[in-house]
Every structure is written in structure tokens, then in C-alpha cells.
């Protein structure tokens, strides 16, 4: 490549600000003595300015984002395991992206963990006598000693089981009971001690977009 051709090639990166190092000085020296390259530089700057001009219309991204988020939530619902979403599962078989792989495995694993947790909670809380098999938000959570701090939390309707596991693991929490008829989970510290149930744990849950509600309580 001759000197002039090399200069023309470098002009693009001078014009867009990406030229660096010794090539900057070399090109400047070439431009000093080459009127063709100076004209080419002017032409390339005109191209840059034309492309970079601001649009005359303003775009409103929020509405577009809302449409995308609705799609993502729809995908999440369709990714639920068959036991929870039998009708969706049939459709999912036709969907290439969500049909198999780590999402499904993760969801199934999360389901197994949550079932185990809930099973454990129900087993711990199994009363000796017959009692209503439902609880209200204000009912005492079974298996949680009186006075132990708990957190009452409601997850977003569309949250996946894998998300619940992720949220709980991140905050050092486990499900003591729930969900209630109102969708409320009673959460306790994983190790059974009060330490993790600090204001920062509550704040962490509240900051998570997948958590709709989180409040401290004590039983």
C-alpha cells in the first residue's frame, strides 16, 4: 500500500476519533503536504456530520420497553415447569428457545427445592389435632417459635420458582410457611438465628423487583 492509500484508509479513524498513537502524527504530516487527502478529509467529515445529525422526531422508549417487558413476563410464565403450567408446557414444546436446556432444568431444580422446603415446613407445622389447612396473613406461622423474627413477603405474580430460590439464597432466608391465601410467605433465617433478619435484609428484599412486599414481623 502506498503512502497516499494508507492515509485515505486512516482518515476514517481520524474523523471518528479512534485513531491513536504514532499514526496520528504520521497522518497529520501527510495531510500537510497532500491537498487530495485534505479534500477527502472534508468529504468524510461531511459524511460523519450527515449521519450524526440529531433526528427531528423524539422517540418515546418507555412504551416500547413496556411491550418488551410484557413479552419477557409472558416468556417467564411459559417457562414454568409442566406441573405448574400444563397447558403452557404443550406450547413450549414447539418453542425452540425455551423448550429445553438450563432454564428448564433450573426451574425444575428450583421447584424440587421449594417443594422440599414447603414439605419440611408443613411437616414441622403438622398439628396433632385436626386444624384448618389454611392460614391467614396474621396467623402464627407453624414451626416458628414465638418471638423469633420473621419476614412476611409477597413475590411478584410472575416470578419463577428459580427466582424465589435465588432471592432466598441471596438473603440467607428460608420459607417457614406459605404461601397463604393472600400469597404471603413467612420467611426465617436459614440457620434459625435472628441475625440475618436485619433492616438491610428487608431493604434488600424491597429493592428486588421480584418482591412486591416485605415486612418484618415476630412470632
Amino acid at each position, binding site marked *: 500500500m502506498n503512502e497516499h492509500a494508507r492515509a485515505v*484508509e486512516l482518515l*476514517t*479513524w481520524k*474523523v*471518528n*476519533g*479512534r485513531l*491513536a498513537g504514532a499514526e496520528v502524527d504520521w497522518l497529520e504530516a501527510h495531510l500537510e503536504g497532500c*491537498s487530495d487527502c*485534505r*479534500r477527502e*478529509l*472534508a*468529504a*468524510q467529515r*461531511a*459524511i*460523519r*456530520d*450527515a*449521519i*450524526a*445529525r*440529531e*433526528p427531528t422526531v423524539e*422517540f418515546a*422508549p*418507555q412504551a*416500547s*420497553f413496556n*411491550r*418488551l*417487558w410484557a*413479552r*419477557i413476563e409472558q416468556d417467564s410464565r411459559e417457562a414454568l415447569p409442566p406441573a405448574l403450567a400444563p397447558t403452557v408446557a404443550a406450547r413450549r414444546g414447539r418453542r425452540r*428457545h425455551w423448550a429445553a436446556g438450563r432454564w428448564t432444568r433450573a426451574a425444575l431444580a428450583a421447584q424440587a427445592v421449594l417443594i422440599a422446603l414447603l414439605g419440611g415446613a408443613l411437616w414441622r407445622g403438622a398439628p396433632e389435632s385436626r386444624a384448618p389447612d389454611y392460614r391467614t396473613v396474621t396467623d402464627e406461622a407453624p414451626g416458628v417459635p414465638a418471638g423469633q423474627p420473621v419476614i412476611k413477603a409477597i413475590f411478584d405474580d410472575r416470578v419463577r420458582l428459580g*427466582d424465589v430460590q*435465588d432471592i432466598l439464597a441471596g438473603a440467607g432466608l428460608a420459607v417457614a410457611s406459605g404461601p397463604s391465601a393472600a400469597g404471603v410467605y413467612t420467611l426465617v433465617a436459614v440457620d434459625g438465628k435472628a441475625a440475618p433478619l436485619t433492616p438491610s435484609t428487608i431493604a434488600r428484599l424491597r429493592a*428486588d*423487583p*421480584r418482591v412486591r412486599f416485605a415486612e418484618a414481623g415476630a412470632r
Partner: protein
Amino acid sequence: MVAPSSQQQQSREDSDRRLLQLVAAGDREAFRELYVVYHRRLARFLVRLTRRYEVAEEIINDTLWVVWRKAGDFRGESRISTWIMGIAYRRALKTLRARGHQLYEAVPIENETLVAPDEMADAETGEWILSAMQQLPLEQRLSLEYAYGYGHSCEEIAKIMDCPANTVKTRLFHARAKLRALLPQLAGLEP
């Protein structure tokens, strides 16, 4: 929009990286923030490319949908903007091809020269250049957009378009040559 300086690009990259880490953890608000940033960066260019906002939005949403799903897989082999622009490039090609060739096929330039007035104001020059760009093959046109509009380096464009760096240089060379053929005044601009 002016092609960002290196310092601005680094600042953007830092901001993008922070947001992407949060997105990988499922943070909706961070995703919304990242979406707004890339909507702004992509919309003008894609509307110009597709001539229809709803098509541009479809490409943007397809792109950011992939970003949402793959955020946790990003390993930093490139700038985040290069990664996302590469996704947008592939989505744009796929969408345009699915919608028919008339949206992206070049109009032959033989026997066709755009003649602009001798005394062109800057704005008019810009209009003529953008009109002339419509005549270029898609790959050449996109190369111009990435280089002059977004300020990507040759290597970054090669990564976005998944081609060798020399191909990028060749596309830019032919694109400029065709613009000069369409707009003889371009070659006569005063330095």
C-alpha cells in the same frame, strides 16, 4: 449525535457494565435503564434503515430481549456496546430479510447520479448524503453508520458484522466511492 470521544466511550462502557451486571441478576430497573440507553442509540439509525418505526422497535426489542436472556453469559470479550450492536446487527438482517428484499436491497446506481445545488448549505449536504446512502448495499451502508455514526473502531465493526477487518475497510472504501459517484460535490468540498 456525534461519534463519542474515547473518554466518553470508556465512561459509557463503565456505565453499561454496571447496568449489565445488575441485569444479569434480574434487576428490572437496571434493565429499563439499559433499554432506554440503547433505544436512544439504535432508534434513529434503525428508523433511517427501515423507514418505519414499528420495524425499528421490533429490532430493538428483539435485541434487548436477547440481552436480558444472555446478560449472565457475557464474559467481557468485547465492549458491551460492541456486543449489543452485534446482536442488533444480526436481528436487523434477519428482520429485514424476513420482511422482503425491498427494504434492504440496494438500488442500482448505474446511470443515476444525485445532483445537488452548487451552493449547498450544510443541512442540505447532509440530506443529500443520507439520500445517497439509501442507494448503497446494506453492508456498505451499515459500515458507514458504525464508523461515522457510532465511532466504532475497525476491529469493533469487524466483530459486530462478524467479518475480517479488511472486509470492513473494503466496504468503507466502496461506500465512499459510490457516494462520490452519486454526489460529485462531495469530492469538491473545501478542506
